[in-house]
């Protein structure tokens, strides 16, 4: 059997590659695990998402009801939905940790620019998954989150209006928006994500793990075999993550809330998901007008520009390209993290 497969698939090449693969061992090694955790959670998202599809019925009149049916009548329906929601949150968190650790260890530097660019795009796409998936239960919170979110897109000068209409499928958030977001969430985004993820993982396999600057020239640098040493640690951590996920999903089941009513006022105390909280807080604190711009336009341009520049970080950081350590980009990275943490906590406190 093995011989039959080997003749057709050249398994030996894969095995010998896995045997040769090593992972550097140093004091920053802990960060190597977060990409794998993100991948693990993504796989959970795919599986639980497909399961939800078996019962979910998109549409203004059916979406909310189908999820209520799923949660109250379908065996373990509440669990599958809860897992999908919690895993989405954990995935964004793991991806953020992965991204910032890659940033601070300069793992994006030459020749790994493509891995960084695809990685950041995957991260943004994860946020887009979160945003589009949030609307699908068609509850009150989702409805207003989508109104605000798409209106933010609409406030971009010149192109904003058409983009907003494109997202909403009309002038208002309606059943047409739900259909579109469903299409984004289960077809368009997964398709793009898969391609980017394939490139991302292929690059990691071809180039191996990056060592922090300094470590790579350290004559005493150690490394451990990927298989089985590192792989087993990976699997252990995945098991721990699975347990955390199970605890969250079982003891803090995801609420369904109140069905959306397009003609009701926004409920008091409405906030977005935690990963959008810092942007929410900044937009809330910006005055109605900044310079000659409306406050929200200023905020949107600020975040849009920052997020675009972030994609191209490896090309700006000339020092690390030459393999030199530099303070500037560490300071920028820490400033971004502190900014996000500060406004997230502030948003939390001011609820």
């Amino acid at each position: 059997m093995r011989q039959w497969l080997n003749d057709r698939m050249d398994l030996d090449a894969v095995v010998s590659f896995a045997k040769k693969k090593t992972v550097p061992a140093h004091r920053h090694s802990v960060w190597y695990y977060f990409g794998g955790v993100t991948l693990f959670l993504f796989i959970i998202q795919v599986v639980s998402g497909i399961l939800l599809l078996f019962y979910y019925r998109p549409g203004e009149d059916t979406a909310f009801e189908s999820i209520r049916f799923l949660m109250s009548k379908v065996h373990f329906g509440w669990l599958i939905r809860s897992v999908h929601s919690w895993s989405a949150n954990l995935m964004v968190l793991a991806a953020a940790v992965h991204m910032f650790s890659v940033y601070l260890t300069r793992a994006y530097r030459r020749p790994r620019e493509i891995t960084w660019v695809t990685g950041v795009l995957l991260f943004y796409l994860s946020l887009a998954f979160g945003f589009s998936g949030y609307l699908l239960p068609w509850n009150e919170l989702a409805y207003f989150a989508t109104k605000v979110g798409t209106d933010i897109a609409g406030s971009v000068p010149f192109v904003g209006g058409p983009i907003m209409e494109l997202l909403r499928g009309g002038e208002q958030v309606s059943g047409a928006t739900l259909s579109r977001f469903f299409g984004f969430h289960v077809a368009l985004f997964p398709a793009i994500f898969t391609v980017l993820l394939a490139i991302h993982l292929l690059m990691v396999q071809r180039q191996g793990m990056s060592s922090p600057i300094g470590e790579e020239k350290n004559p005493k640098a150690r490394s451990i075999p990927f298989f089985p040493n590192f792989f087993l640690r990976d699997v252990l951590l995945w098991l721990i993550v699975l347990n955390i996920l199970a605890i969250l999903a079982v003891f803090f089941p995801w609420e369904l809330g109140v069905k959306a009513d397009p003609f009701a006022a926004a409920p008091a105390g409405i906030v977005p998901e935690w990963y959008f909280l810092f942007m929410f807080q900044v937009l809330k604190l910006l005055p109605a007008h900044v310079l000659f711009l409306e406050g929200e336009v200023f905020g949107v341009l600020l975040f849009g520009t920052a997020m675009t520049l972030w994609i191209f970080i490896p090309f700006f950081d000339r020092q690390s390209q030459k393999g030199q350590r530099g303070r500037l980009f560490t300071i920028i990275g820490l400033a971004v993290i502190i900014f996000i943490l500060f406004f997230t906590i502030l948003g939390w406190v001011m609820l």
Partner: protein
Amino acid sequence: MSDSVSPTRRRTLIWLLRTSGTALFAALVYPVMAYLKPPKVTGDAVSSVRVGAIDDFTPASGTLFRFGNRPGILIRYEDGSFRAFSATCTHLDCTVQFKKDAGIIWCACHNGKYDLNGRNIDGPPPRPLDEFDVIEKGGEVFVTEA
């Protein structure tokens, strides 16, 4: 291709390829872009709605109503007079509500505040609420586009 091909001929061929390539691309992209742009749905546009009988609204109250596919808010003042505004917050599109205790129109999403004349007085809203015209006729309240 043999070396005998003249540079002019090569340039022409490349030009033709590029042009037809661009045309093909445009011919594919344009219909898709046009397809994605939602057509105007009839029935969305409304110029006048009946909100209810005058007596349905107590003085010093605010009531949400449907104006076509948009929400509106009808304010009845202490003196019994009416004014109506679009209930869509000028900041980021949430739906506002009447807050009796504070005597304001309030947006829960980002804590935007308007006075009862629809003027933005606090928080992020950049402009006042859009106003509708209120017509009282035969004991009923009608709202029309201003």
